[in-house]
């Protein structure tokens, strides 16, 4: 009479499924109130900026007779000197700012992940050379080069995406490379290799999915720094051009006129800071939840 084991097995499997990396991370993330707050705010702001302008007043209709008025019932955040509704302008500016944040981060993501994965997987001399390049580029004043690009090649929003993305991929490349270096020694990679899979397939099918955690965390943290750079450029007048407006250019307008019309500075500034705040909380929460140590520093 040997006791049969099978009944125990499904239960063990269930526990394993319940404690997988992603669902465990999800539970940990939900317990982190600040991160949840950040996530909710980011989603809410994103939806508001994406769909708000469809319902709000026009962001460009001028009303010169009205001029700049303080916040009131008709214009919740007041109007600017040309009588344009500030709430609509802030939402519309948020659209551009968030879009730049997402697209430029995506550019940085693609460059950084590919570069880091190739360097880490190749190893040896190629890896050393590629990482030396990254070290050297770390020392370069990238903001200055983005400014130069914008000045010399005109203030084109596509160029803005590429320029910002191209200057923010370095840390991503470093993180991915470090992860890949440790993953490529795992048995399942060995197995894939002995099955005769091509290098490309191994990198994209097996290595990258397993470094997803750090990539997600760092992507979340890259978005605010990309948005900061965009706003920095727009503040200097080198980013998004009129009649388009981003939070950076709205803040610039507000700063020029704040002596008389404080709301022009305070509201776009608050929206912008709140977004940065939330994204940083969310990123920190994700880092703790996914237990990523390599990100930052």
């Amino acid at each position, binding site marked *: 009479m040997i006791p049969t084991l099978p009944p125990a097995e499904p239960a063990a499997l269930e526990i394993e499924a319940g404690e997988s990396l992603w669902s465990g991370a999800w539970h940990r993330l939900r317990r982190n109130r600040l991160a949840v707050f950040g996530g909710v705010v980011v989603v809410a702001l994103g939806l508001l900026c994406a769909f708000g302008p469809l319902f709000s007043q026009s962001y460009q209709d001028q009303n010169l007779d009205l001029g700049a008025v303080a916040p009131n019932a008709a214009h919740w955040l007041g109007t600017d000197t040309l009588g344009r509704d500030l709430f609509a302008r802030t939402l519309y500016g948020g659209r551009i700012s968030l879009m730049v944040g997402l697209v430029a981060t995506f550019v940085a993501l693609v460059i950084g992940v590919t570069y880091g994965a190739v360097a880490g997987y190749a190893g040896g001399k190629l890896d050393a050379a590629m990482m030396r390049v990254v070290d*050297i580029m770390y*020392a*370069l*004043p990238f*903001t*200055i*080069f983005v*400014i*130069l*690009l914008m*000045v*010399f*090649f005109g203030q084109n929003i596509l160029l803005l995406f590429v320029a910002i993305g191209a200057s923010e991929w370095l840390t991503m490349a470093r993180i991915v490379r470090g992860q890949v270096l440790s993953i490529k020694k795992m048995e399942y990679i060995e197995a894939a290799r002995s099955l005769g899979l091509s290098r490309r397939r191994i990198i994209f099918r097996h290595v990258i999915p397993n470094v997803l955690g750090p990539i997600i965390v760092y992507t979340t943290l890259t978005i*605010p720094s990309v948005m*900061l750079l965009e*706003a*920095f450029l727009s*503040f*200097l*007048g*080198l980013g998004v051009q009129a009649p388009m407006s981003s939070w*950076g250019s709205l*803040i*610039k307008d*507000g*700063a020029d006129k*704040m*002596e008389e019309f*404080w709301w022009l*500075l*305070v509201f776009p*500034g608050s929206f*912008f*800071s709140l977004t*940065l*705040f939330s994204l*940083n909380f969310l990123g920190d929460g994700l880092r703790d939840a996914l237990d990523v140590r390599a990100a930052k*520093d």
Partner: protein
Amino acid sequence: MLRFIGRRLLESIPVMFIIVTGTFFMQRFVPGGPFTAEKAVTPEVERNLLAYYHLNDPLWKQYTDYLWDLTPKRFHPGALASGLDLKAAFGIDFRPSFKYPNRTVNEIIADKLPVSLELGGWSLGVALLIGLPLGVLAAVKRNSWIDYLCSSFALTGICVPTFVLGPILVLVFAIHFGWFNASGWYGPIDRVLPSLTLGSVYAAYIARLTRGGLLEVLSQDFIRTARAKGASEARVIFRHALRGGLLPVVSFLGPAIAGILTGSFVIETIFQIPGLGREFVNSAFNRDYTLVLGTVILYAGFIIALNLVVDVVQVWLNPKLRFE
């Protein structure tokens, strides 16, 4: 140590070379030149202008001539003391400005750079003087209200960018209370708001890094040993823990200084400070090529040199890092 420094210096030569080459050709291949916006000039004047700036030479000659002008040819740092003359000190000639034909870029740099350096110095001081004590306090009084206060300060500093903080400080302390001038760079009082604005972001980062670094060190065995031997808490913190705990801060100083340099573009614009940062932004708008190139190269050289200093200090603080 000397070998390490020497090797890093040698390595920085190709980096500078790439920067110079990149910016030189970037500005040559763009539509529109520095003179296109000007009112039409007679052919003779144009010929003279082109000759004055050597724009008639073949491109490769312009490039090699420019490279030669930038190559350091002598070393008399003493000449820097009397008016920051890069030509007298190192033989570096950034050529005449395109926009102000009777001024050389060297003169403009000598004129404006000290202002930017002063602003940067004060800002770095603010960052260290606020950030370090806050970080140490937060780590020592971990999970107390001081810790939470420090953390929220650090987060605020990180999330409120300089170009929001600066105008708001002006609005509150200059316009509303009238304690400071809203702009300008005359008396010592004009240094306060700009350096606070520029320094606070880095103070926030430094506080965070100090807290993290110190907490990590404080949990190590040699700290317990020091405590067991009866060292006072102050001695444990300042003698034993701080040296290792400051490592993350030191490695952050490189990026911080680079950030302060570029951050000064915005600060100098907000507060109308006559420094090199504002001059750089203006020169970029004016397509003043020689001035743009000169400033970029100067800043790049600065940042590379400072990174080297940071690396050396880092190794000096942490003997575990060999000079690889």
